[in-house]
């Protein structure tokens, strides 16, 4: 363990002693943040786009680019989630719940800073796990078989449905079930038959998550922005707050040398702002550790990834918080938990990728392709065939965190200015970016139709207080839900007992049952109160 740590620090020194590599990492992280912030352009897509371009690039530069994009992309999604209530990536959907409410109250820049620090802390803990406990994590991840994966998928949809529902909990569950139903539209993995595709060939490969997400989030937001235009007050509130940064104070002080009329800027204010951000994040130590462990665990599970990690972290944070009723109304806790969770999942997802050759998340799956392209064979023999490679990857992620800090400092203010662009200019541009983003992933005109149809459904659902998040999560997890369920009962000749006889599966089963029963009891009580009123 200590040897791993020493190689890890050695690699960090090597990276920072190479200015070219440092600059590339910085640029890639900035690009990742921007890509993540644009609806439809995800970390997965960024890695996929750049992998092909790295064919002739040296190994350390290749992975500096790809890890920079990965770390930046996962964080970047939260920026548009906070500013526009349109998550740039699916993993940022949970952040939008409280983040956008905070932005509406005028704390957009501060919330971006808090989520940035939370992302950095989450990624750091993920990296530490990758360096120190990767063999142990791999062993735990290997305990997950079909029943556990099925229960995890069910658990993800159920908790997401319970958490996000603005109105009745049943609406969250209905949304989750609809998401699952949408995920069933595809070529069946077990029987090899087209399911619910009605002869449309494009439907046989399933409904794309990204076009669906863009439709569900972007179109309703564009409509809502024009409807509420007259009373939209984010800009004014943000201007009242005026948070300051060290970079800005330094810049003003330099410019003051040449100015006749000096502009007031004090390092004290900048320090106070930073202190607030640090205090907000680090006062939630229990929450950080809890969310990081969830992110690491779920990240290490093959195919689960950052999206589920963010939701489970958010739900667990809400359930274990003293302020559980304040969740969803705009509190910093609600943004810290999912950001720590989804960023810790980066380290978590890299563990099985490198030690088993099994990607833990969609971006990690694309990274697997990049590893193959550069003749690196991930698996148990990786440390024998490529000694120090795991430490190099961990060091690159660690350096990407530092790059994220720098990039975040530079980009926080300009990104917040997005809110100051008048709705009549901003929203048509968002619509254009959504169309390009939705199209770019598979370059299919069918995806544009998906954006359009889901945009209309999304708007109706939004009006009727159905959250889009469980639908999207259902769409993501539906395949796993279906395949793992049938895999379990096929291997057990029709018996469903493994769902309750295997310990991890049983734990999930009990939690799901408890969630359903408690929500039903709560719903009945609320309904009785409503009738009495």
């Amino acid at each position, binding site marked *: 363990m200590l040897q791993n740590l020493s190689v890890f620090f050695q690699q960090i020194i090597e990276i920072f002693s190479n200015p070219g590599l440092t600059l590339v990492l910085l640029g890639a992280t900035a690009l990742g943040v921007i890509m993540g912030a644009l609806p439809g352009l995800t970390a997965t897509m960024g890695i996929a*786009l750049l992998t092909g371009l790295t064919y002739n690039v040296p190994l350390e530069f290749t992975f500096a680019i790809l890890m920079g994009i990965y770390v930046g992309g996962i964080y970047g999604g939260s920026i548009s989630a906070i500013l526009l209530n349109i998550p740039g990536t699916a993993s940022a959907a949970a952040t939008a719940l409280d983040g956008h409410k905070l932005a509406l109250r005028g704390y957009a820049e501060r919330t971006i800073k808090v989520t940035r620090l939370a992302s950095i802390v989450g990624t750091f803990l993920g990296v530490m796990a990758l360096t120190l406990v990767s063999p142990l994590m791999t062993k735990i991840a290997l305990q997950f078989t079909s029943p556990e994966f099925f229960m995890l998928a069910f658990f993800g949809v159920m908790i997401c449905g319970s958490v996000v529902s603005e109105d009745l909990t049943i609406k969250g569950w209905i949304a989750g079930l609809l998401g699952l139903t949408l995920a069933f539209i595809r070529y069946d993995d077990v029987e090899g038959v087209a399911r619910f595709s009605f002869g449309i060939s494009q439907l046989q490969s399933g409904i794309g998550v990204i076009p669906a997400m863009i439709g569900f989030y972007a179109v309703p937001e564009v409509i809502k922005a024009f409807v509420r235009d007259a009373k939209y007050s984010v800009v004014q509130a943000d201007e009242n707050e005026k948070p300051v940064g060290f970079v800005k104070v330094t810049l003003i002080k330099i410019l003051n040398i040449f100015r006749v009329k000096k502009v007031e800027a004090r390092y004290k204010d900048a320090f106070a702002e930073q202190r607030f951000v640090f205090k907000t994040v680090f006062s939630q130590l229990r929450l950080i550790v809890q969310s990081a462990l969830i992110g690491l665990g779920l990240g290490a599970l093959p195919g689960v990834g950052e999206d589920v990690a963010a939701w489970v972290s958010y739900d667990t944070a809400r359930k274990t918080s003293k302020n559980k009723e304040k969740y969803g109304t705009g509190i910093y806790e609600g943004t810290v938990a999912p950001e720590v969770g989804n960023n810790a999942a980066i380290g978590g997802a890299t563990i099985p990728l490198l030690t088993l050759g099994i990607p833990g998340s969609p971006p990690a799956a694309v990274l697997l392709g990049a590893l193959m392209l550069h003749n690196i064979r991930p698996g148990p023999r990786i440390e024998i065939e490529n000694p120090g490679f795991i430490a190099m990857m961990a060091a690159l992620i660690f350096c990407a965190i530092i790059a994220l800090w720098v990039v975040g400092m530079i980009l926080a203010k300009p990104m917040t200015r997005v809110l100051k662009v008048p709705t009549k200019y901003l929203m048509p541009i968002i619509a254009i970016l959504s169309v390009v983003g939705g199209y770019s992933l598979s370059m299919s*005109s069918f995806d544009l139709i998906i954006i359009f149809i889901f945009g209309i459904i999304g708007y109706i659902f939004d009006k009727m207080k159905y959250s889009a998040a469980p639908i999207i999560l259902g769409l993501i997890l539906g395949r796993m839900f279906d395949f793992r369920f049938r895999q379990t009962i096929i291997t057990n000749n029709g018996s469903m007992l493994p769902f309750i006889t295997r310990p991890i599966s049983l734990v999930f089963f009990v939690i799901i049952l408890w969630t359903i029963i408690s929500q039903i009891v709560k719903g009945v009580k609320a309904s009785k109160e409503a009738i009495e009123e």
Partner: protein
Amino acid sequence: MDKKTLRKADLVMSLVLILFAAFVFIMSLKLMNRTLNLKNEDYAVWYRSAGLIPMIVSILLAISAGSLFTTAWKEGARFDFFTKEKVKHFFTCREFRVAGFVIGWLAIYIFVLLGPIEDLIYNILYAIPNIHWMIPFYIPYILMTFIYLFVFIIVFSDKTKKRDWIMAALIALVVSFLVAYLFGDVAMIILP
């Protein structure tokens, strides 16, 4: 939407969901029958069927929709909102007009401007002999995006002000070029 109206909408939605669940159930049943009628007995088992999980989910969906219907009904919602005035109000309110325009214009952009019209311009431009090689391949996309943005911006601007028209044209032009350049050239993403 106030709570009373929301519950009335829930009433309608729950019925739609029950119908949808019934449709999914019937489709799943067909898949189940297909599996059970397979000639190979090893494969003709219920738990292998592609319709199994959708069937279970459709039942859960119907139960949930039923529960939603009961809740809405208990809270006093009834089917008493299909009056002429209410329907008229719904179709003439500002939100409906905004939503209608945004969705309608998006449909025209996706299905008409980026569809047959873009193809037509592409064919016309590239049919010109000797100069087709100097026309960037994304010019039709820029043109269509410019039209979309310009109309979108101007609809929500003060049409009496000359400045608003100029700003709309300028922003539409710059954004169209930037999107085409950054996505098409820099990121090498094929544009719609």
